[in-house]
């Protein structure tokens, strides 16, 4: 079973730090100042804080069992890794057609306009915990196994 990131809406204060840490984690420089001010193409947060005051919670790719983005992908860039259960996105193959954005029920896929591709949560490959989970000051994000 794949581990997913679940939001605890009742403790999310909508601070947006998850977006900041995600952006830095996925920048080339891994430096917050450079990531936000000078890096090109601009690093993009793959997590979004959904806000409708007083409600807020973070959303990122759910790595769906039967992922609509994988079926719909025009280029073969979006794939389901049968071993890890993760939905992976190959930037080199992506043609930036936005079909996955049209089809993702979570609105979890982001446009990288400068790169002419999409981007999405990769669960921070190679780290114990995704950056958004590790750095949430309120522990409003939990990384755990859930039923698909």
């Amino acid at each position, binding site marked *: 079973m794949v581990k997913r990131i679940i939001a605890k*809406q009742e403790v999310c204060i909508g601070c947006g730090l998850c977006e900041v840490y995600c952006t830095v984690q996925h920048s080339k420089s891994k430096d917050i100042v450079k990531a936000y001010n000078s890096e090109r193409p601009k690093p993009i947060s793959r997590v979004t804080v959904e806000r409708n005051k007083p409600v807020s919670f973070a959303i990122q790719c759910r790595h769906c069992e039967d992922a609509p983005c994988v079926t719909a992908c025009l280029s*073969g860039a979006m794939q389901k890794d049968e071993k890890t259960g993760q939905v992976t996105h190959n930037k080199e193959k992506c*043609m930036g*057609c936005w079909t996955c*954005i*049209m089809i993702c029920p979570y*609105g979890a896929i982001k446009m990288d306009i400068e790169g002419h591709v999409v981007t999405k949560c990769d669960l921070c490959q190679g780290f114990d915990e995704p950056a958004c989970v590790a750095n949430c000051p309120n522990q409003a994000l939990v990384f755990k196994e859930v039923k698909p």
Partner: protein
Amino acid sequence: MSKYVIVGASAAGLGAVEAIRKVDPTGTITVITDETCAHYSRPMISDFISGKADMKKINCRTEEFWKENNVEAVMGKKATALNLTEKTVQLESGEKISYEKLLLATGGKPFVPKTEGSEKDGVFTFTTIGDAQRIAAKIDTINAKAAVVIGGGLIGISVTEALVKRGLKVTIVELQDKILSLLLDAKGSDIVETVVKKAGVNVVTGQSVQKILGKPGNDGVVGGVLLTKGSQVACDLVIMAIGVIPRTDLVVGSAVKINRGIVVDNLMQTNIPDVYASGDVAEAYDFIINQNRTLPLWPLAILEGQVAGYNMAGKTTTYGGGTNMSSLKYFGIPIVSIGLANPKEDPMLEVLVKQDFEHNIYKKLVFRNNVIVGITLVNSIERAGILFYLMKNAINVKKFKQELLSDDFSWANLPVGLQKKMSLVQ
């Protein structure tokens, strides 16, 4: 003898292979295609012309896709006849391949209106990688400077952008009053037309090409077009990009029932036992208009192919339906259009619009009984999927209808019950 025979190796055929292999790892699969380039992304052929995608990138599966899925691929050979009693498919060479289950995934063929001069050197259709290669080669050989693209729909716009990137002066000739008229209403279309014109494209609407003209002194070679209202446009290339029609040649005259496309049920079965059809050649279910129709769209073809594949392999699977849905990336102006884009006045329908012409933003939703039945988003598409989810699941949006078009619309605007159902929150 092959357990599964699939005619066509594009989206529907690929979807079927993948689905069959999930259920039946060993049953023999034969895929027949008259194309020689395997499993490539048809929507990417304009990127091939522009130079953005090479032959490696255009491959939308792994290099070893046939091998990995243990598929016997019959490439570059055309299936010419069916024998439904004998259960065989005959190839051009006369060779017969027998099947237990057959999928007709022959796709679409370009619609080419009868036009005087269309046999001239320099006239192309635009649906296959072969077309794209021929166009790209022609541009290089004759150092083409100008092109006329017949058709201002999705295909026409895609090839126009590619030609502009190659430095050609392009004229789009569209019979309707507006370009992209199947995807956008007049306001949406006007935004795109302005952007396209700014890129140097000449847009002619409300006219068609009545005659393709030759070059002075060399009548066999394209030199221009004569439009229906009498004016002429000089060009080196003419691209017919009006659209596709179901490629039913193989089944015409057989007992397989054809309407516009091949008639299928929600298991993608035709009227003949063990014969299935999917993709551009089939008339599959549209959940917005609540009837079957041809919808030549890549994601739907994959999905329909998957449904057929599962059913062929014995795992009963129902097609939930698709609708007219496209996303466009061309000329730097992202567009999403799903369902009813430009419905006629109808007391049953409610329309909400939000526009910001300064930023080329236009958003429109169409509702029937408080359910979304039409989504148009121009230059503001990132939340399209959430709206599509509400549409596809026919969720009553009465309580939050006004929020759907707000700039900061998100899942936080939707009921907690839905958020929990989708496991977004605990």
